[in-house]
């Protein structure tokens, strides 16, 4: 018996999606792989193939209201289509296997499958044809274009075939990275708070502000302003914004005395390097960076980031822990 699924999301589904965006339990948010029905599909109804990540599944079904179609859900280990295609779990073998185990040919009289275009990195259409007899059509990239694609007689425009990475696409990815960065910072903050008890010149509000600024520049500002920041390399973009933030905050808040020069120099080395590293991590979230490119970028940027951080951290810690002003 094929389960018919709704095209409306419940409150629980919406909350589930929100949790995923915040990085809570997103590795284990799955639906059962297999064949599902939307509306009242028959032998001639289209078959859409997708991943068993519930976030993907929900995005797809809410865009299918009013359609009668079949959904063939592959076991991608609760990973979205594009990432799973890269790993090979949204792949030729799993598709052929799922066509057989779901007994798809019992339910449809045609032999056409509509796959999400981003699944193509894992699926070889001609091999699927050879092994299962089913023809693969790659549908649009975005679920919101599927209805239009079907109405146009399974034709996609160039726009439907091109992956976007607009402001909203970038901003929804920010919380996961920001939360991760804060998580890694907590132990450091803990150690510094303890060290502050003994430091001749304790870490103060300005230090807190520049470090928060560095994280903000790398994980929020860089993604938000990505195409408008000069340079092509993410590390450079992040470094520029980090430098701007650090210099800005230091300029606003610190009175430059002789003793503060070492601290200022250390801060200007350390904090932009942190922003640069965090920005470089965003290559993983972006939709257009090639592994060859990221490799090249990192070979140049990582030694600089590590060097600047080491010297910068040395100067910052040195000026706080070893000397400078006497305790107030």
């Amino acid at each position: 018996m094929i389960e018919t699924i709704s095209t409306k999301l419940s409150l629980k589904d919406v909350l589930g999606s929100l949790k995923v965006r915040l990085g809570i339990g997103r590795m284990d948010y799955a639906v059962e792989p297999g064949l599902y029905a939307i509306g009242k599909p028959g032998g001639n109804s289209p078959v859409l193939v997708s991943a068993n990540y519930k976030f993907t599944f929900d995005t797809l079904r809410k865009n299918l209201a009013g359609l009668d179609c079949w959904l063939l859900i592959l076991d991608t280990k609760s990973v979205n289509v594009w990432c799973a295609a890269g790993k090979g779990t949204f792949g030729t073998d799993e598709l052929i296997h799922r066509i057989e185990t779901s007994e798809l040919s019992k339910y449809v009289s045609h032999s056409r499958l509509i796959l999400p275009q981003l699944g193509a990195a894992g699926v070889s259409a001609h091999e699927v044809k050879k092994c299962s007899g089913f023809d693969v059509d790659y549908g649009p990239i975005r679920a919101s274009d599927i209805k239009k694609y079907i109405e146009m007689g399974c034709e996609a425009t160039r726009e439907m075939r091109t992956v976007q990475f607009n402001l909203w696409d970038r901003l929804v990815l920010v919380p996961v990275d920001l939360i991760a960065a804060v998580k890694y910072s907590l132990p450091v903050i803990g150690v510094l708070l303890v060290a502050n008890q003994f430091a001749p010149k304790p870490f103060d509000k300005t230090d807190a502000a520049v470090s928060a600024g560095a994280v903000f520049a790398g994980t929020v500002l860089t993604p938000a302003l990505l195409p408008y920041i000069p340079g092509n390399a993410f590390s450079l973009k992040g470094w520029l914004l980090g430098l701007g933030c650090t210099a800005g905050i230091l300029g606003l808040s610190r009175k430059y005395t002789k003793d503060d020069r070492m601290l200022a120099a250390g801060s200007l080395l350390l904090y932009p390097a942190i922003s640069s590293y965090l920005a470089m991590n965003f290559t993983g979230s972006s939709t257009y960076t090639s592994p060859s490119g990221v490799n090249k970028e990192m070979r140049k940027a990582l030694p600089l980031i590590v060097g600047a951080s080491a010297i910068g951290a040395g100067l910052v810690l040195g000026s706080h822990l070893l000397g400078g002003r006497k305790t107030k």
Partner: protein
Amino acid sequence: MKHKYLKNVTTLAYSEKKCTGCGRCAEVCPHGVFYANGKKACILDRDACMECGACARNCPVGAINVNAGTGCAIAIITGWITGKEPTCGCSSECC
């Protein structure tokens, strides 16, 4: 505004000789690198290639080659450290 990444880095290799003009490469490429209109495919925007490998995997005559992989810094660093092929360790949006 179109995003641009590093130039002249992609490992994409295409043999026009082998191409039969089926158009699959243009159909699957998420960045419009290929153009095919019933004729042999041509490369429109080579620097837009992100090496996802969809074109090579779906070319029925093996006219396209690319070192496909994930353009993710963390995955590549992890690959350097463990000596394995870089794979994305995370789920969801992050690759």
